């Protein structure tokens, strides 16, 4: 278990400030943040390499604040591997190994065993990452800290290594904390997501929770939400005709129907007691696009506008719809976009459910 409370550290002029989060025993934590947000410094502080200047740190229930790195029973894998260049690959893997058999087993499982006869300097960046991973795991630590450990692997290898690491993690019951830029990776691996920026934790919790309910518009935009609107909200009274003409709101207890006004848009949302929400966030995947009005749709929010921009990236296409000066972005598969024969300037309809609107 990693339990950080008010953790602070300093490296040159950079400060890690009041970092609080917990990764329960045997869980997989993921740290997400822009470049320079302090992700590596956080891992190094947990490892005891960067001195802690404040707060408390518990590792596996022990107070680790004053423990030297070698007594923290953790493994650290840097993005660049930092393989010892004066040792062979084999010696690198065996460096701190709990037992030669463990080193061999783990090296085989992550695909580093076949590299054992190669000189370190001949390894590619990805191969170095595999050897570094094997070296850290061979010690059988209870906690593993990973700093973008798959960044140099090709997509196929990345996927297989990620799967194998997840298996080892479950079998051995280790606690993992991984730094990544990849939101998909964070969603696939993480039990706990920690969003870091400028040395502070912006939000932490279950990845789905963080992605669906970002704590601030900054978090939402950082996590890739295209539709972030500033505006004002008003709680609608129960059975309000504004909410859904002729239909009972039927909201769960504690939830309210909210009307959110932003520019030309009036957005309906469902939320529990949010105090003065200033922003509405809708993920582009939640916005349904059509060229005809969606009469039978159960979605509460419907808008008519004109297609302002179409951008295709592989299998996904993003379409910007101008609704009286406000722009809504919808994401759909490229195939669907082709079937709809979308073109800039066409009239289009965007709709999304009230539950898809996150207020913060």
């Amino acid at each position, binding site marked *: 278990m990693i339990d950080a409370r008010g953790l602070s550290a300093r490296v040159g002029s950079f400060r890690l400030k009041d970092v609080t989060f917990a990764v329960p025993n045997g869980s997989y934590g993921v740290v997400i943040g822009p470049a320079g947000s302090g992700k590596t410094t956080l891992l*190094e502080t947990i*490892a*005891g*390499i960067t001195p802690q200047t404040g707060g408390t740190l518990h590792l596996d229930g022990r107070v680790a604040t004053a423990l*030297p*790195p*070698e007594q*923290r029973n*953790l*493994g*650290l894998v*840097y993005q*660049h*591997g*930092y*393989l*010892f*260049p*004066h040792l062979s690959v084999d010696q690198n893997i065996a*460096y*701190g190994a709990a037992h030669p058999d463990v080193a061999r087993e783990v090296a085989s499982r992550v695909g580093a065993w076949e590299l054992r006869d190669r*000189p*370190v*300097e*001949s*390894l*590619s*960046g*990805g*191969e*170095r990452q595999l050897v*570094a991973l094997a*070296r*850290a795991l061979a*010690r059988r*630590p209870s906690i593993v800290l990973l700093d973008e450990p798959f960044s*140099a692997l090709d997509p196929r290898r990345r996927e297989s290594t990620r799967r194998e690491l997840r298996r080892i993690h479950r079998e051995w019951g280790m606690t993992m904390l991984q730094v990544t830029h990849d939101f998909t990776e964070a969603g696939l691996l993480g039990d706990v997501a920690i969003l870091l920026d400028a040395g502070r934790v912006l939000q932490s919790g279950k990845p789905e929770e963080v992605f669906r309910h970002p704590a601030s518009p900054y978090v939402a935009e950082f996590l890739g939400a295209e539709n972030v609107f500033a505006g004002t909200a008003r709680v609608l009274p129960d059975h309000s005709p504004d909410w859904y003409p002729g239909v009972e709101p039927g909201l769960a207890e504690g939830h309210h129907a909210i009307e959110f006004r932003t520019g030309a848009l009036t957005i309906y949302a469902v939320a529990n007691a949010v105090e003065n929400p200033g922003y509405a966030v809708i993920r582009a995947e939640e916005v349904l696009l059509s060229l005809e009005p969606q009469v039978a749709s159960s979605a509460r929010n419907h808008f008519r506008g004109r297609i302002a921009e179409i951008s295709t990236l592989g299998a996904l296409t993003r379409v910007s719809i101008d609704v009286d000066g406000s722009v809504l972005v919808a994401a759909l598969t490229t195939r669907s976009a082709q079937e709809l024969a979308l073109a800039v300037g066409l009239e289009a309809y965007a709709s999304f459910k009230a539950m898809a609107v996150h207020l913060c």
Partner: protein
Amino acid sequence: MIRLFPQLPRSIATIFAALLGSLLFLFLVAPIAQLVATAGIQGSERLVTDGELRRALVLTAATATVATTLGVLGGTPIAFVIERWRFRGRAVVAALLDLPLLIPHPVAGIALLLVLGRDSAVGQAALSLGLRIVGSPAGIVCAMLFVSAPLYLSGAREAFARVDRRFEAVARTLGDHRWRVFRRVTLPLSGRGLVAAAVVMWARAVSEFGAIVIITYNPKTASVLSYDRFTSFGLREALPVAAILTLLALLPLTVLRALRYERRPGLDVAGAQG
């Protein structure tokens, strides 16, 4: 890139720079080449016939080796601490250790005489233990150590600075305590740089004259002998000694160049392409 003389055409500037560089090269090489050409063969013959020269060379090599050993043993931990630890007064300590490089070497000899001379506390303590410093090989070692150890310290600091701390960090997370990390990781990775620094120190110790001549004129090191031959017998007698010293200086120079230019594997961490 900033052009020093923007008004000059590029070709003229190139010719001008090449001319200046060539002049400096000739200025540095010509006297040595002339010395070796004039007296190199004679100097090599003197190695066989001149017993005093042989003794001086052996004494120089032995005292320089002892001084270098002491410098490496004492200087390595100091260089490591200055390079790796952050403490108040670190810059002052580093500056103080560089100071012997800046003072004239006869002044260094006089300073050493004050501290190690017969009338000093250290000198008297050494004498009571049967060790005479001034006028003995021990004095030569002290003079050599004083003037050349800062060069080792500087080289060793650079060697440690070139070792990325993250190698050491990884080793610590793999269970090694500080001293074990130093032995298993830092020392092997900085080894080439440390040896190069030791070679520079040894070469500087061998060529030292100013401080040695103040503290120990006799027994004579090679540099003192060449000076002695010059003042007693003139240029003709000094030339063979000077030439053989120059030829022997090629030895550490060759070692140094081999260490510097040989490929340094692995200190890059990103890995090969692909």
